[in-house]
């Protein structure tokens, strides 16, 4: 399974806690459309695929691999007032841990609501 398919699978849970996802690559919108149409797991994708054709977004978040013109595997967690609270950057050949994305979103919300710190490996039961 690809990273995007894994995000698509967990997306209903993300939506359920009131959070959203934007997937971003330097591909064209046409490429995104064909990719969705030809990938069964992405047919009914609930979140947008953003086309960073100008590389401006990837550059401003410092995740542009200028040698290949592609973005790193990078995730940013942005609060409701649009401040970056966490970021993770993975090696090109290593897929991310998608359940950890969901856990981190829940933990960020919990921390913001309660002011409580969130311990190692914390999970909502």
């Amino acid at each position, binding site marked *: 399974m*690809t*990273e*995007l398919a894994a*995000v698509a699978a967990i997306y209903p849970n993300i939506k359920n*806690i*009131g*959070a*959203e*996802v*934007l*997937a*971003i*690559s330097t*591909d064209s*919108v046409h*490429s*995104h459309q*064909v*990719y*969705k149409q030809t990938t069964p797991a992405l047919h009914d*994708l609930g979140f947008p*695929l*953003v*086309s*960073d*054709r*100008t590389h*401006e*977004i*990837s*550059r*401003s*978040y*410092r*995740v542009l*691999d200028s040698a*290949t013109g*592609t*973005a*790193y*595997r*990078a*995730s*940013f*967690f*942005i*609060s*409701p*007032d*649009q*401040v*970056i*609270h*966490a*970021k993770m950057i993975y090696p*090109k050949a290593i897929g991310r841990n998608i359940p950890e*994305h969901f856990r981190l*979103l829940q933990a*960020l*919300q919990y921390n913001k609501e309660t002011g409580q710190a969130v311990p190692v490996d914390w999970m909502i039961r």
Partner: protein
Amino acid sequence: MSEDLFIKPAQSKEFYATRDDKAPFFSADAVDGSEIRRIRLDEFKGKWLVLFFYPSDFTAV
């Protein structure tokens, strides 16, 4: 809120966003459902948001 409050890469080549920074504003075309539409970061104010950058469509990982 005005876009002027966001630091744009064109205005400051040295600035790169990291933790505790205001998320740099962007707007770009996106495939959303079966539509192509312009997406703006500030549409998502009021919600936690994950920006999920990935290298390219049609890769195995």
